[in-house]
């Protein structure tokens, strides 16, 4: 399976954030999106995830099994700045909800909740309310969310921003394991993720005020 983006552009409000972004990644490949602050990395990821409308261009899945997905978004996991976990519920309740609600995409299946917690190095505390965890632990539990339901594409927005070195290594291991299962990953980051050889996409950080209309 390949994830192909062709000549994407997007705007926020009146401003065109980026223009003519194209990439093509295949199974087992990762794309790292780099660029200065405000260059539109997050916007690009949200456009790919279908959370923001695109101005022009196309995102599609090509290859075997692509009929299984109604939309590109339904083939993706999105790990944004916020963890999408409820403080009042225990970690287990949170993870179980996402496991049941998201369900597995065609092709593979997610791992159990305890196994996922073990994989992020926090086994044994799934019975605690999510709000009791420290910021780093919360982030790691949010990563466990990627593991409990299978999605071929991982979209990661600054995944390791609040993490220490050990957790970064742990996360690189998770992504590598995902790639080796035939998954794809797109990550926007400043830090090197330690994934080895990956494709890179440099966003120029171009900001062109809307030429038409109000200019």
């Amino acid at each position, binding site marked *: 399976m390949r994830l192909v983006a062709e000549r994407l552009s997007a705007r*926020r409000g009146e401003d065109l954030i980026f223009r003519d972004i194209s990439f093509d990644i295949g199974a087992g490949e990762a794309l790292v999106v780099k660029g200065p602050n405000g260059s539109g990395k997050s916007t690009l990821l*949200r456009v790919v*995830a*279908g*959370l*923001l409308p695109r101005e022009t261009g196309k995102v599609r899945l090509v290859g075997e099994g692509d009929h299984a*997905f*109604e*939309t590109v*978004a*339904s083939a*993706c996991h*999105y790990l*944004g*700045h*916020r*963890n*999408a*976990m*409820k*403080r*009042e*519920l225990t970690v287990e*309740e949170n993870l*179980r*909800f*996402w496991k*049941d*609600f*998201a*369900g597995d995409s065609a092709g593979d299946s997610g791992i159990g909740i305890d196994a996922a917690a073990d994989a992020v190095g926090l086994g044994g505390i799934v019975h605690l309310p999510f709000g009791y965890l420290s910021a780093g632990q919360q982030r790691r539990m949010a990563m466990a969310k990627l593991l409990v339901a299978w999605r071929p594409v991982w979209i990661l927005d600054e995944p390791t921003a609040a993490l220490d070195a050990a957790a970064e290594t742990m996360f690189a291991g998770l992504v590598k394991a995902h790639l080796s299962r035939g998954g794809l990953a797109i990550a926007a980051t400043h830090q090197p993720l330690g994934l080895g050889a990956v494709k890179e996409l440099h966003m120029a950080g171009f900001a062109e005020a809307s030429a038409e209309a109000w200019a």
Partner: protein
Amino acid sequence: MTALLVRDLKLAVRAGGGAMIGVLFFMTVVAVIPFGVGPDLNLLARIGPAILWIGALLAALLGLDRLFQAEREDGSLDLILMQETPLVLTVLVKCLAHWIATGLPLVIASPLLALFMNMDAPAMAATMLTLLVGTPAITFIGAAGAAVAVALPRGGLLVSILVLPLAIPVLIFGVSAVYAAVQEPAPFLPPFLFLTALTLVFAVIGPVAAAAALRASTD
């Protein structure tokens, strides 16, 4: 889908949940009315159904603003939008959970408050029945308002302003059905059936509009 229903119900009853606040608000509002109009039992019995309905309407609106805002604040909304499950269905289930947590307690509490209003048994039963049928309509149409106001700061008051006018038909048919049940010549069924029809229509319009608004509100 049951997972979503169970999660929302859990969130409602856990610490900080809104399940109890709605009923409390309802009780307080209704309890304050006699201080305004005086303790004349006959008068209270006459205006009782209307007071109960207005109280229930306000209480049902309370907490609606958090329906999607809480999801948006912690990022859950993004993930919900991305799923294969139709968003309309998700919204419908969320409305259902919200109604079970806040609307149903209002229905259950209404006979007690009817006692305070000195209403007789038929009026009490009619009020309870119409509330049972009518409050889901408020939740459904309120969901549309909540979705529109999801990205706004201080959306709470705005939701009430947006939704109250839309909920007027529910109030009209709910109250008139109760009065029809109590006062002899007027038949009970026509307004009650109108109320039922309104709930069914809003059960479609509300989630569809809310889903569209949620899709449009992402940033």
